[in-house]
């Protein structure tokens, strides 16, 4: 089944068409990668899918239902979660609370219940606590659960973002350059984590510049250049594709590499 499908997805900022007629289809259970040179529109594509930008044309369908145009807080309820290229954690909150924020859509306590501290609210809080703890264990942050996230090293912050996204219990997880800024050890751990997440049945769309990482993980790769999709296929197909080489290296560079 097509889990995610974008049709002719387009957005422009002033004169700049950042994403131009993009058609993507993501199959359930896969890890897909979205690659392309800097400024080619990868992040913008994710922003369109998650409702941060409104497309100027085209649409996004998720499980056969059109979701483009929905406000962002409803899109996540449909089962799409994401991380950010420039980490955006709530810095004054602990790791625990950042992940608890991800649970928001799965909790119901309303103002009245909270104020009278009703039994339902107390039970829900206990349940949330153990679920958050479970996620913290799953992503391996138990030791620093009570640290404020702004005090954490970069690599840990990236993991907290993934944990927070997982807490929304997504079917589709969008990761925007999760390995950026990580050292080798951290990158290896990240790869393992991403596989573990896939094994939980969560589909992943991944933006990444590290080609080894893409090669090791991705079942299917989309290549963007100047906002347009120039190729898709398995990593092997993509590696051999002339257009892709040109996009990354320029015409000249492509010729050199081929020679």
């Amino acid at each position: 089944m097509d889990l995610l499908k974008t049709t002719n997805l387009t957005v422009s900022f002033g004169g700049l068409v950042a994403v131009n007629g993009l058609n993507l289809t993501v199959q359930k259970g896969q890890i897909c990668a979205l690659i392309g040179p800097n400024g080619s529109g990868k992040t913008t594509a994710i922003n369109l899918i998650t409702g941060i930008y409104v497309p100027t044309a085209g649409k996004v369908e998720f499980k056969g239902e059109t979701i483009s145009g929905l406000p962002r807080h409803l899109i996540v309820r449909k089962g799409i979660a994401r991380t950010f290229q420039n980490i955006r954690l709530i810095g004054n909150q602990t790791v625990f609370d950042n992940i608890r924020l991800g649970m928001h859509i799965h909790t119901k306590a309303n103002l009245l219940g909270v104020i009278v501290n009703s039994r339902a609210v107390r039970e829900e809080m206990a349940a949330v606590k153990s679920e958050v703890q479970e996620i913290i264990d799953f992503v391996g942050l138990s030791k620093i659960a009570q640290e404020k996230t702004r005090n954490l090293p970069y690599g840990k912050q990236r993991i907290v973002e993934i944990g927070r996204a997982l807490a929304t219990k997504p079917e589709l997880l969008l990761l925007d350059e999760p390995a950026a800024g990580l050292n080798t050890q951290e990158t290896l751990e990240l790869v393992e984590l991403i596989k573990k997440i896939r094994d939980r049945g969560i589909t992943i769309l991944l933006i990444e510049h590290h080609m080894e990482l893409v090669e090791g993980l991705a079942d299917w790769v989309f290549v963007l250049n100047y906002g347009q999709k120039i190729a898709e296929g398995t990593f092997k197909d993509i590696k051999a594709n002339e257009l892709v080489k040109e996009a990354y290296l320029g015409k000249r560079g492509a010729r050199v590499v081929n020679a």
Partner: protein
Amino acid sequence: MQAELARVPEADVSLRMPEVGSKGEWAVGLAMLVQLSLNGLALGLLYALPAFGIALIYNATGLFNYSQGDLLTLGGYLMLTVFGVWHLPYPIAVLVVLGATLALGYAMGSIYFFPMLIQKFGPSVILIGTVALSVAIVNAVLLLWGPMAKSYENVFGNKAFQFGDMYIMPHVFWIFGIVAVLVILLQYLFTKTITGLAMRAVAQNYVAAQLMGIKVNQIIPLTIALSTVLAAISGILITPIQPLTPQLGGLLATKAFASVLIGGMGSMSGALVGGAIVGISETLIATLVTPTYKDVFTFLVVVSFLLFRPGGIFRRIEVEKV
């Protein structure tokens, strides 16, 4: 605390003085509309001066100075003493007042704003401080000059010019002229002088300006001094339109804020247009709708404006980059 002002409905009586009145409520002719608009424009320009000061400070420091309106009042009262009581010649009195407010503004900038700014306090803290400053000024004025509304001789003359059915007071033209000259001077300051360029650099990017070797610790107090002087000029010019009361500044500050928000924080022309909109709509509402609630209506105009055009007339709303 600022009750006096609203309780004095005749506060803007001179605005409406030479009006037709006898011709019946709705026989308000084009002439009167033009006349009211010109009066409103004059008033609006007097909002525009402190408004521009507010924008200057905001751009340079990211702070709002709530006491801007009271600095205006203070300028007016100083003029009352220097010109109205000591009887110094008008131009000299003006120079004395401008000199005094310049010094006061610089002192405020270097003692209060700049140290707070480099301490990285949240704007909310500094804002509360400027409200306290405003209250201090109002009460100092109350102690020094008393609570009664005061005015002094209108040097621009009290005889209205007549153009057909229109009667325009001379101070209206004087205000137009003086503001025009000020705009030219400010333009010169900001494009041709080192100090002005430095102020603009600080307004663009405080940190970068500092790195470029601009003496931020002087430029920021200077910016505040300049905006204080602009407010004082407004205070000097406002007496023919409104008598001075200690609480005058409160409402004026709100209207100056409103002007700068409507016009956008960017430019002198923004402040002028914003001030004109506020001044004209206030004057028209006072005469044509209700004088009691002119401020309420004016605020409603401003609020709806902000709602439909957040960011002001001239500003394009940008999409946040994620």
